[in-house]
């Protein structure tokens, strides 16, 4: 599948035709709903206390719909006027003409146009990756990401959270995004759902102000009870570890005795010449003098 982000500006890609197609595909509606529900779960909003939530790249309002059902008030921003027009029509469609949502035409890469400490929370569903591409010579992805995250840091209330689901094209993009978020002061990291499925895999950047919170536990707190899904956190641990380079996480589980024995076995079955297993197998060697 080719990436729409490579075809130019989002407002050109999400034109009237595409906006309608997007909004009327039941498959799309189902997928976006499921992602948003997961994002809202990671936001840990208290549904008994309605929050004011910013929805970035709100599109035709599919993500806002989920917030709405839970009684939250939301403000959707999108760079595509055609997507917003479809969102507006929805509002007018509902027979009761009721909605807790409001809409704004805006490019997140130019920084959010709000007063400080305005929103209780922020979500963004399938939009953030657009900031990794430049649509003109003047646009610099790094600058736009920095501007976006530092403005997000300002407009969120202290104690608020942001959960941004995105589709990185490469591992570097995921790192660029999460690093930029931590550089402006956010704590948090990336949660990956279904890491082993190319199709179902989803990245959620979970951001908060709580630097005392161990991001891994924090981000995975809800995941442990959920047997169906598998989660992995990538990116640096934040806050107190800032600046210190952490060894890649993989190394921890790997090269254990079991793993080495398993590898040796596998090699043997392939008919390779492998040294016998002894009590010294997988022991750490002492450093040289």
């Amino acid at each position, binding site marked *: 599948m080719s990436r729409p982000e490579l075809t130019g500006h989002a407002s050109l890609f999400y034109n009237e035709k595409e906006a309608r197609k997007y909004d009327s595909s039941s498959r799309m509606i189902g997928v976006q709903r499921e992602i948003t529900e997961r994002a809202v779960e990671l936001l840990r909003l208290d549904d*008994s*206390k*309605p*929050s*004011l939530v910013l929805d970035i790249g709100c599109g035709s309002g599919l993500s806002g719909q989920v917030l709405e059902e839970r*009684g939250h*008030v939301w*403000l959707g921003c999108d*760079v595509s*006027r055609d997507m*917003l*027009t479809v969102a*507006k029509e929805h*509002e007018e469609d509902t027979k009761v*003409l*009721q*909605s*807790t949502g*409001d*809409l*704004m*035409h*805006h*490019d997140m890469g*130019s*920084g*959010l*146009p*709000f*007063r400080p*400490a*305005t*929103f*209780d929370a922020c979500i963004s569903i399938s939009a953030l990756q657009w900031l990794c591409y430049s649509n*003109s010579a*003047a*646009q610099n992805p790094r600058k736009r990401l920095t*501007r976006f995250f*530092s*403005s997000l*840091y*300002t*407009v969120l*209330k202290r104690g608020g959270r942001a959960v941004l689901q995105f589709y990185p094209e490469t591992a570097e993009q995921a790192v660029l995004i999460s690093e930029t978020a931590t550089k402006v002061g956010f704590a948090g990291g990336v949660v990956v759902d279904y890491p082993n499925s190319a199709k179902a895999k989803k990245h959620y950047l979970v951001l908060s102000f709580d630097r005392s919170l161990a991001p891994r536990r924090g981000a995975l707190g809800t995941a442990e009870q959920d047997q169906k899904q598998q989660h992995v956190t990538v990116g640096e641990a934040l806050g107190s570890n800032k600046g210190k380079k952490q060894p890649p996480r993989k190394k921890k589980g790997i090269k254990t005795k079991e793993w080495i024995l398993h590898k040796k076995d596998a090699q043997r079955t392939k008919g390779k010449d492998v040294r016998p297993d002894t009590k010294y197998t997988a022991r750490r060697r002492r450093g040289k003098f």
Partner: protein
Amino acid sequence: MRLLTHNALRNNAAAAKGKGFPLRITATEVEVKDSCPFDEHRLVFVEGLLSTLDWSALIEAASQLGIPTLPPVLTEDLAEDPEFLEALHHVLMNVHLIQGILTCPATGREFPVRDGIPNMVLEEEDCEHVRY
């Protein structure tokens, strides 16, 4: 666009130097509709808003939309009066600017509102040097 949204909007273009609030409203079409009915849930919501609302900006904006009835100061008594909170909720959620212009008080830049949607798009050079 709701007045709740207007109360949050600020022109953050570099030229506004952090003084792009509140945006002045020139209204050509305003609609009052019961788009978000009041209930207990909503009461909790407005109570939560009281600490973050900019009251003088709200009074000004409401009067620019033809609603001159808000009290000049938000007293503690009012903050606990459910009837007042319901009226406030109505002003924040049910009054919609459909067509008009938002003008930045610092730079005079105009942001059009069309079909209820404000256009806050900035050019790259307008936000180049913004510091948050």
